[in-house]
């Protein structure tokens, strides 16, 4: 059994389905823009306080978009009860899980591709390579955690609602470190390198942990 073949097949299947139905990407992208919009209504934003508020809105929007993307990736499988069929094959659950995580992250990254320029366009905050790196690093860890918990809640009723509950607490390290990195990339005081170092540590920790845990979550 070749786990890479299985993982790639799963990721490709998810992305092909997405491409066919174009369910997530356009709506996700516009949803993110809308989050910006609402954020703006709640807070009186001007050029002075934008760098301190924009990261908060960025993370809020990304967190919600991520929850939806990850929730959807397993919910769709369950609605179709195709998850059981997939688990009845000899493919390793870790490979299946990795495939789904890859596909969901690709979608989330597409979503960030819209989000980051929109942010600097609408709030006038600087757009830099540092910003992109910080967001990407946070995405890796958030994606592996998000997928793990999405897999857990896919086997539970009310998955849309349980998912945030389980995922958000563990995303907080990424939100805090990522928020710090983004803020300093936007010119506020704070050490960018330190925040990035933290993000990398968290990434390694959680990618290892989730791939160990995937077996227990998807098996049976």
């Amino acid at each position, binding site marked *: 059994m070749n786990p890479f073949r299985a993982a790639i097949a799963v990721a490709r299947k998810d992305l092909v389905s997405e491409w066919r*139905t174009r*369910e997530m990407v*356009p709506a996700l992208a516009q949803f993110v*823009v*809308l989050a910006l919009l609402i954020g703006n209504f709640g807070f009186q*934003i001007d050029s002075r306080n934008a760098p301190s508020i924009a990261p908060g809105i960025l993370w809020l929007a990304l967190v919600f978009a991520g929850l939806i993307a990850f929730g959807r990736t397993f919910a769709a499988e369950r609605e179709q009860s195709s998850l059981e069929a997939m688990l009845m094959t000899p493919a390793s659950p870790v490979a299946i899980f990795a495939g789904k995580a890859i596909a969901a992250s690709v979608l989330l990254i597409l979503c960030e591709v819209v989000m980051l320029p929109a942010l600097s366009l*609408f709030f*006038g905050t600087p757009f830099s390579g540092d910003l992109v790196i910080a967001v990407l690093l946070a995405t890796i860890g958030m994606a592996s955690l998000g997928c793990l918990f999405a897999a857990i809640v896919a086997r539970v009723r009310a998955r849309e609602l349980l998912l945030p509950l389980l995922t958000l607490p563990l995303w907080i390290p990424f939100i805090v470190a990522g928020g710090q990195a983004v803020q300093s990339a936007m010119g506020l005081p704070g050490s960018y390198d330190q925040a990035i170092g933290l993000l990398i540590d968290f990434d390694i920790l959680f990618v290892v942990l989730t791939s160990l845990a995937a077996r227990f979550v998807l098996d049976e």
Partner: protein
Amino acid sequence: MNRLEKASVGAVALMLLAGAAIFFYAPTDFLQGPVQRIFYLHVSSAIAAYGCFAVVLLGGAIFLRTENYAADRWARAGALVGVVFTTVTLVMGMLWAKKVWGAFWVWDARLTSTLVLWIIYAGYLLVRRLSEPGRQAARLAAVVGIFGFVDVPVVHFSVTWWVTHHPGPVIINDALPAQMLATFLFTMFCTIVLAAVMITIRYRIETLMDMKQLIAGPVHVVITREPGGVAGPVQ
């Protein structure tokens, strides 16, 4: 050339004329300089977009009452063209804003409500794309189009209802020099003609696509008699 082709050539020619008027006839604004010339197309395309969305509203309402698919096709055409013109307004406005306010975007009621307008009708197009074609899509989209139109007056009156960064009404307040006003009125006329032609062309395309899909062909009754009494005539 058929009639549509003639109309499109006419509309393009009118737009070129309007362009000439904007750049060679209208005077340069003494405060803002040449960038003020954005004004003509900026406002005209906003008004053309309102018109398009009115077509969506009417088409939707008529479809809901009469189930006439032609009305739905007009609505579809209106939405697409309206989104195009809203995009033009947004992009032109943002370019202008960069020059005179120093930022592409500020959050005020006019700008935000215009963005919302764009989003609503983009959503309208998505609903069409994602629902089952035919009656279902037509009805759902009609409802979205009717609700969405609520935003049009909001966009228009936003500058009077709220304090905005965006300038308030200048045209109806007689704040424009005569030459500018004339240029504006002519540009607006040309833009509306262009929008009407674009809607008509899109309507044709939608009709052809419907015919290809045979989504909503006319209801025709075939009465057949088969030996064995499978079917009898109605009544």
